[in-house]
């Protein structure tokens, strides 16, 4: 266990992390015990320069989320303040909605592990790309959100209610949710983790919150929410001010883990979920937009690790700007 580390000066980038506001002893909740209830108000992190959090209470664009199922949502692992390894299912019936993620760059396939031309004379070979998805909801006409569980192919709720996309594994690229039949205008999710899941130690936790997720950061600054690494050939600086990041390590709001720090994502488009069988809708991951967010002109003054690692600074730029970017879209 990591108990002895509580309150000690764990150092990241030469800065004592114990100095981070809100990242002290109170942030070391044990798995399943819920941790701090802070953030339950759907508080916006905008005041700290963060993305608008949607976890638990507020849906995309501030729409209310209806648990909408046949089980109390607040017993589940995805409710604010709780990170249960085995969340109580929101519903026992429904249709599997498969949402495979496919990376693109300016609309063209962005192939993992191979060279992708991103500018004349410049190519990118992605070598690591993974991200968490939490708090998935379907958006009904009228902007009402219906929270749904992320499930396995056998319909069991994923541990902690969390999906980890991993470009390295073909088995880890399709998000499945158990959806009530109906017609929807889109879906929403949080790119990241809820505050409760973002806190505490990976020790004792199972995948996808274990160390082999490759998404852990040293305590007490939470998990990586998105991890991207690459080999860039050609000029990194294309000369027009554009820059292709070699690595992006985005976490939550590492200055205050008690607030939702992930990026609230809304994907608009018609979704028809039949009563029987399954349905599949491809979700594109716009790498050009991720790069744009990671290299956007964001003032990181006061961000504790901006000067220590380019990948963390680029991750924080993405986190703060991502809510305003079309990072995810449905394929035509």
């Amino acid at each position, binding site marked *: 266990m990591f108990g002895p580390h509580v309150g000690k*000066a764990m150092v990241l980038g030469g800065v004592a992390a114990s100095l981070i506001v809100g990242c002290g002893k109170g942030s070391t909740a044990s798995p399943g015990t819920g941790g701090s209830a802070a953030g339950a108000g759907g508080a916006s992190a905008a005041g700290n320069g963060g993305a608008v959090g949607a976890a638990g209470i507020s849906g995309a664009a501030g729409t209310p989320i209806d648990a909408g199922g046949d089980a109390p949502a607040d017993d589940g692992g995805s409710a604010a303040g709780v990170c249960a390894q085995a969340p109580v299912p929101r519903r026992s019936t429904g249709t599997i909605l498969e949402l495979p993620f496919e990376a693109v760059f300016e609309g063209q396939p962005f192939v993992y592990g*191979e060279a992708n031309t991103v500018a004349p004379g410049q190519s990118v070979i992605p*070598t*690591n790309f993974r991200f968490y998805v939490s708090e998935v909801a379907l958006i009904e006409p009228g902007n009402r959100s219906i929270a749904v569980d992320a499930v396995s192919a056998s319909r069991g709720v994923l541990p902690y209610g969390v999906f980890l996309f991993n470009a390295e594994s073909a088995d880890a690229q399709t998000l499945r949710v158990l959806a009530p039949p109906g017609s929807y205008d889109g879906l929403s999710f949080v790119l990241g983790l809820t505050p409760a899941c973002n806190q505490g130690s990976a020790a*004792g936790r199972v995948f996808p919150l274990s*160390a082999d*997720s490759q998404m852990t950061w040293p305590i007490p600054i939470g998990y990586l929410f998105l991890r991207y690494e690459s080999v860039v050939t050609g000029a990194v600086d294309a000369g027009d001010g554009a820059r292709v990041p070699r690595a992006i390590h985005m976490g939550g709001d590492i200055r205050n883990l008690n607030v939702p720090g992930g990026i609230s994502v809304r994907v608009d488009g018609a979704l028809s979920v039949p009563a029987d069988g399954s349905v599949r809708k491809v979700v594109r991951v716009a790498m050009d937009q991720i790069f744009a967010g990671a290299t956007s002109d964001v003032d990181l003054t006061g961000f504790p690790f901006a000067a220590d690692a380019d990948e963390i600074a680029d991750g924080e730029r993405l986190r703060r700007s991502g809510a305003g970017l079309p990072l995810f879209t449905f394929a035509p």
Partner: protein
Amino acid sequence: MPANPSAARRTNGHRRAAALAVALAAAGCGSSPSMPPPVPAPLVDDGVPAGFPAGTAASRAPADNALTEARAQLGKRLFFDTQLSRTREISCGTCHLADHAFSDPDAVSTGVDQRTGTRNAPALVNLAWGTSFFWDGRAATLEEQAGKPIENPDEMDLALADAVARVGADPTYARAFDDAYGGPVTEESLRKAIASFVRVLVSAGSPYDRHLRGDDGDFGDAERRGEALFLSEKAGCFHCHPAGTLTNEGFFNNGVYTDGGDAGRQIVTGRTGDTGKFKVPGLRNVAASAPYMHDGSLATLDDVLDHYTRGGNGNAFTDPTIQPLTLTADERADLLAFLGALTDPAFLSDPRWRALLD
């Protein structure tokens, strides 16, 4: 002394075993025709390294190879049995030496007919919690892994079918397989038994483990500073070696690869971006498992620090988190102190891991 270093190690190992036998006999613990054979010390225990995922080694075993004492004991016998090589000279334990955290002190191991491989024999420590095996991850389970060195022409060079025939001809093995797996030896049960032994090699008693449990008696200021540095962006070790497990089980190009060299993970996946990637090893007992890296090219931990200080060998496929470091002499000393605190002397000298005396 044999000219072959591996043969020399085997000789030394046999000398140790003989000395242990003498010592046991002198202490009145030897066997005699009138006494039943000694009961071997149990191999399966409930140790879990600090900071690891919940669950014992037994709980990590696959459902079709539940970890039992009979299976682990059988696997131990097989692990140290030179019958499993074509020339009857090489066992798993020839290249995976307990004193060295079940790694090989040679950069690359010597197999049958003095053949040498291309990669360093990795340490076998806490693999019950592993998610893939070999430096390139080509085996998804310990059971899959266990048969490959037997068949590898540069290692033991024996078809598994031939290994089964040899083992099956021994009545004591036949009884042991029947006890452990309820039937005669098969390729599958042979691999499962060896995997069961590897699964019980749990190191959970280093000063670092005790530190994580709240006992800092052997974890002083230098170790603490080294730990903080290890987990800092300044050294960046945590990118691949997170606290607790000290491996994220991933594959990364850490700058050892040079053009035209061993392409590692790329050979398995075919992906260009996996060129020069190798499995991130756990670091329990790292000070005892020199030399380092997939090719054993770095002789000491000081050499490892030199490698990372210069940011690797400069290949284009090097992971972007590998950057030149600026470390003071004191910081290097602190890092080495921390890495030294990962040594579990009780594991390295555990008599349960020694070869059978007969």
